[in-house]
């Protein structure tokens, strides 16, 4: 029995309410961007010491998750696991939506957003940001092509090459995203080759968590059937990825702890950094890694859909915390102009740089989330992204469970 894909009806009040809600969020984000453009970044919490703030936390999270969201489709096409094939179109759609959301936030946060055209016509190819212009637009192109090969029978023979292309491309993209930080020799938090592969693993984890959330909500709200076989396979995979992220975080900090010169920075993050320490241990480790692993694998909770949903939500929150610690914590720690010495100046040398996120920044970030939601909710009504049913009976009889 072939799995049929069908558009959402999308005529209920609930549907329009949901879509309207996302659109309102987008409008609020746009209003915030306008305020920032009009009054300048002085109305945000970003300063000359902490130059990237909440918008970047949201944006980088979304961009990393975008790459990972494509994972489900890649497993089907690149790794040949037919089980995942019905899940692939939504995966590619989510990838496009998340990337669009992240880029919207980034481009609106620019000091001169009116010069995005300049960014597309002047290139310094030693800069990761310049590569990103091509990596991101190429990703849109590859994902769109990929979706086309999945949906149009006339071109379905190109599905495998499109899938491979998208897979390789997104590995390059996420390596680039990690290298944005990894290539910076100036900051003790960055300056590491580990950041690129860590971002790749983080993308697997965040992307799948977002995918699973969207999948479960879409099927619950459209009253379509989804069986526990699909959920179980995906949640087991998520558990592996969450554990892998923990491994990378462990290696990162263990290595830093081994270098005496990094001890001050590690003490800041792990012990006395205030909000950063709380977000690291409480947000990233406990809420974002340990608790989800328990929920996903413990006999008491591993079969509960609500527990799995909560685990996905916690992974997302933990991911945002991880972004905050990495991006903002990395800037809050002062630069060492004279290692081993004590520095003071009028430009906040030698002191922890304070940062308080402002409402406009948070709303801008949420506006990006709104873009994601609006695209996904609208697209599943317009096109056949969602299988009519992912019930056990439909999955089991047709596809092999490996």
């Amino acid at each position, binding site marked *: 029995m072939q799995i049929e894909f069908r558009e959402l009806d999308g005529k209920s009040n609930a549907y329009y309410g949901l879509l309207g809600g996302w659109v309102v969020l987008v409008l609020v984000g746009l209003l915030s961007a306008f305020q920032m453009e009009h009054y300048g*970044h002085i109305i945000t919490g970003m300063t*000359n010491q902490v*130059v990237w703030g909440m918008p970047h936390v949201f944006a980088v999270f979304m961009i990393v998750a975008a790459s990972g969201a494509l994972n489900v489709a890649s497993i089907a096409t690149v790794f040949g696991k037919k089980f995942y094939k019905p899940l692939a179109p939504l995966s590619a759609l989510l990838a496009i939506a998340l990337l669009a959301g992240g880029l919207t936030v980034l481009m609106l946060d620019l000091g001169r957003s009116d*010069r995005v055209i300049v960014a597309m016509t002047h290139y*310094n190819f030693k800069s990761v940001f310049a590569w990103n212009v091509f990596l991101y637009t190429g990703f849109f192109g590859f994902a769109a092509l990929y979706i086309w090969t999945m949906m149009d029978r006339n071109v379905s023979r190109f599905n495998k090459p499109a899938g491979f292309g998208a897979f390789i491309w997104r590995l390059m993209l996420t390596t680039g995203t990690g290298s944005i930080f990894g290539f910076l020799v100036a900051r003790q938090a960055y300056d590491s080759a580990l950041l690129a592969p860590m971002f790749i693993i983080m993308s697997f984890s965040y992307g799948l968590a977002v995918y699973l959330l969207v999948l479960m909500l879409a099927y619950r709200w459209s009253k379509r059937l989804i069986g526990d076989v699909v959920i179980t396979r995906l949640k087991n995979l998520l558990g592996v990825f969450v554990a892998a992220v923990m491994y990378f975080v462990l290696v990162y900090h263990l290595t830093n702890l081994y270098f005496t010169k990094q001890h001050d920075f590690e003490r800041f993050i792990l012990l006395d950094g205030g909000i950063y320490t709380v977000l690291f241990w409480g947000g990233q480790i406990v809420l974002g890694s340990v608790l989800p692993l328990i929920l996903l694998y413990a006999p008491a909770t591993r079969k509960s859909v609500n527990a799995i949903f909560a685990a996905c939500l916690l992974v997302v929150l933990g991911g945002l915390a991880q972004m905050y610690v990495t991006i903002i914590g990395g800037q809050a720690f002062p630069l060492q102009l004279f290692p081993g010495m004590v520095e003071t100046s*009028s*430009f906040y*040398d030698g002191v922890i740089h304070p940062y308080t996120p402002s409402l406009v920044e948070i709303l801008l970030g949420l506006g990006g989330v709104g873009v994601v939601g609006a695209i996904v909710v609208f697209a599943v009504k317009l096109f056949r992204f969602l299988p009519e049913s992912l019930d056990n009976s439909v999955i089991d009889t047709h596809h092999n469970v490996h």
Partner: protein
Amino acid sequence: MSDIDNYRRRFMTGVVGVAATVSLPAGLLFWQTAEGKSNDDAGLASAKTRWGMLIDTTKCATGCDACVRGCDQENGLSGKTSPTSPQWIRKVQVSNPSTGNGFSLPMMCQHCEEPPCVDVCPTGASFKRADGIVLVDRHICIGCRYCMMACPYKARSFIHQPVTDQLAEVPRGQGCVESCTFCVQRIDEGKTTTACQDACNAEGHQAIYFGDLKDPNSEISKQLAQYSSQEVLPNLDLHTGVRYQGI
């Protein structure tokens, strides 16, 4: 699919196909205009010169910030020190926690030979001029602040609000990044001293030398040849244009 849908599909594809084909040369033309390529290469800044600075921290007085005042006045800066205020130069107090020994020095853009800020700028707005001065071309800066993340000396500032009282010789405005320019507006007029240097000399400390590093007869070159000097963060191998004595 019905005939109408079929027709519509072919119509749209035809329009898009033609528009795409037409926009290729049009886009190329637009791109070239945006590049604004100039054939005139009678430039004044040349690689025969490399501007550099030498700061003698033994003469730099703790508590004195004449260089900062001089820079503020020359470049139209407010002199405020809030977290969002631009500071092109600042005095840094350094002390050794074990020995108690301390010194102060002015810190500004080090005009590196291999500037990390230039590496990371996506548009090439952050660039190194032929004569070694590292500048921000504010015409093409998009305000992404990546250069501020990349600078190991935290030399760059972002302008967080509209500017209305800028000096005519030093254009600066909201949304772009800026840093010490070695008083490029004075250099291009043919002057050979920076405002911070003049201010320090006026104060009587004479701690700042500025000149052409490639000219062996310049005062700075003679000083550098005679006395030991160091870069800040020498392990980064950036070969900065600013060197310090006594750190």
